[in-house]
């Protein structure tokens, strides 16, 4: 049964069927083989149940907030502030891209939006300063991953809901690994700038800096709401997301006046459409994983891979490898929906910390957004920068290596991810 389910999935995936098809078809086939005498209406029950968890409300809310601010001025103001502080050091412009991605990532949970908001504004400036296009695009598509690691993160919300892990803890656990990536990327940018002798920008005066900080103060309220609100126990992640929407509306419509209130239904429509497309996958994924659990497939797969006796390190390595490879070829959300239920019993039995696993999985998912052949950041870059696929991919390898190094570090020293949540919750 497992073989047939898998074959159908792979064939449908390869031939470009909408992603809900492989999931739901596999669930149906599994069901019909396993329960020839029952009505598959239970799959409908599971599909509805899959999207019911109220924690999922955070996804459309964060998308809506990000939609509102990418139309407005927040991103530009955040970019400006980092440039004022970083521009004059070697590789300063590239470092600014990294930092701006981190800052913007603290406002927004989508890597694609980050590519557009930061990359769109920064690429022309980097090219003008003498950075090669392959380095520039490589940096942008990879630094945008930070949007997934630094809260809020759509990937973490979905992992949290599917695996039953605290989204608040996941959010906080992603911060330090994200900052480590910022540090590594910045060091690499600096080295790159020395090697290619890229000129530095003029140092900004403290007056200009102060002014930039003042202008960026409003957008800096988002991380305060998200991290402060959740950390301090004021809000659930879902509520923090909704308050972000309110804040974004106040900011962009009332203070910056970059959008009009009557644009809101239109922005909400686009959010609704994205939500539906993502959530139908979660629904299909729930039906799929119900069939798997019922037939005890995870147990079978795990024992056939000999993972039953594997220690936590082996298990973690296997999980990371599976996610890394999966995310190379398939959309990250689909990978989470397929692989998390398969590994869930193993994670429980080896006693691995689900928060640690979640951070590492999120990291792989983020990396996957910029690894060929299937990567949402790559597609966004192709569309926005109007460059062919090969050009967009050319600059990726060094950044990919850094991200894999970070993965290794977090595996070797789990405290990198875990000390903040432990400080906060245990």
């Amino acid at each position, binding site marked *: 049964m497992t073989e047939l389910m898998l074959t159908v999935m792979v064939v449908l*995936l*390869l*031939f*470009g*069927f*909408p*992603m*809900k*098809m492989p999931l739901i078809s596999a669930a*149906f086939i599994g069901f019909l083989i396993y329960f020839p005498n029952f*009505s598959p*209406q239970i*799959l*409908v029950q599971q*599909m*509805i149940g899959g*999207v*019911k968890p*109220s924690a999922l*409300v955070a996804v*459309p*809310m964060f998308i*809506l907030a990000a*939609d509102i601010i*990418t*139309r407005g001025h927040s991103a530009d103001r955040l970019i400006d502030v980092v440039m004022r502080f970083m521009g004059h050091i070697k590789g300063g412009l590239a470092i600014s891209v990294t930092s701006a991605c981190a800052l913007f990532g603290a406002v927004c949970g*989508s890597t*694609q*939006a980050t590519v*557009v908001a930061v990359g*769109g504004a920064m690429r022309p400036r980097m090219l003008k300063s003498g950075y090669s296009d392959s380095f520039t695009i490589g940096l942008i598509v990879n630094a945008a991953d930070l949007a997934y690691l630094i809260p809020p993160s759509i990937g973490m919300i979905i992992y949290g809901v599917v695996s039953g892990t605290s989204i608040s803890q996941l959010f906080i656990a992603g911060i330090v690994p994200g900052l480590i990536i910022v540090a590594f990327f910045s060091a690499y940018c600096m080295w790159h700038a020395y090697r290619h002798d890229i000129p530095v920008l003029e140092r900004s005066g403290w007056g200009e800096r102060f002014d930039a900080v003042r202008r960026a103060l409003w957008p800096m309220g988002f991380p305060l709401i998200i991290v402060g609100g959740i950390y301090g126990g004021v*809000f659930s992640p879902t*509520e923090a997301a*909704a*308050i972000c*929407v*309110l804040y974004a509306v106040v900011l962009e419509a009332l203070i910056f006046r970059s959008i009009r209130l009557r644009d809101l*239904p239109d922005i*909400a*429509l*686009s959010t*609704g*459409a*994205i*939500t*539906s*497309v*993502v*959530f*139908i996958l979660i*629904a299909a994924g729930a039906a799929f994983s119900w069939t798997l659990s019922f037939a005890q497939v995870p147990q079978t797969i795990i024992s056939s891979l000999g993972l039953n006796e594997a220690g936590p390190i082996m298990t973690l390595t296997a999980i990371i490898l599976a996610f890394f490879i999966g995310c190379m070829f*398939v*959309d990250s*959300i689909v990978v989470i929906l397929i692989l998390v239920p398969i590994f869930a019993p193993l994670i429980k039995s080896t006693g691995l910390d689900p928060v640690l696993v979640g951070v590492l999985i999120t990291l792989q998912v983020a990396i996957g957004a910029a690894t060929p052949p*299937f990567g*949402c950041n790559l*597609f*966004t870059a192709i*569309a*926005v920068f109007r460059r062919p696929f090969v050009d967009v991919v050319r600059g990726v390898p060094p950044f990919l290596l850094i991200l894999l190094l970070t993965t290794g570090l977090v595996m070797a020293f789990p405290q990198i991810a875990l000390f903040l949540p432990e400080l906060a919750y245990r």
Partner: protein
Amino acid sequence: MEPRSVPFKLLGKVDGVISKIEVFILSWGVIAMAVNTIANVFGRYVFHQSIYFSEELNEFLIVIITFMGLGYATRKGIHIRMSAIYDALPQKLRKILMILITITTAAMMATLTWYAVEYVAKVASRGRVTPALQVPLYLTYIWVVIGLGLATLQYLLTALRNLNLSEEEIYVSYLEVDSYEDPETAAAVARFVEKEEETAK
């Protein structure tokens, strides 16, 4: 891109009305979700009174957005899909593959619709109610049936539109010629283009 001529004009009109309903549900559903969640926070902190049905309302909104958005997304051709092989095929084969994809997907959606009808009918006959508002549960589930049904219709229409192999365009929905795109990517790109145009003005 506007198609040159639309066969079966009436279908196009029906489609237009359905589209308006879907647009309404999606946009106001998301706004309602935000308002509901924000109101609950304010209720808790400002008025020391949570909205007892807040979570239940969000559950309902999420279900209706997910399933009613299905038809809309199909109509707009936004789906997460892997198109590497598809894109590499010659035009004609691509069109045939598109017909195959839409027909198979329509068949799957129709099957789901059927079982959704069965399931929702059963929920209705068992008289289940929602925990907070105590309204009949099937009233919140009926949208699943409608959404899946509309998606079936959309895929069928798309298949129909593509059947004319002599025409070069490949339709991703009854009215739209486009390439399938990841929705978040599409939205992000749309924002970018919008902004560029604004700066150009």
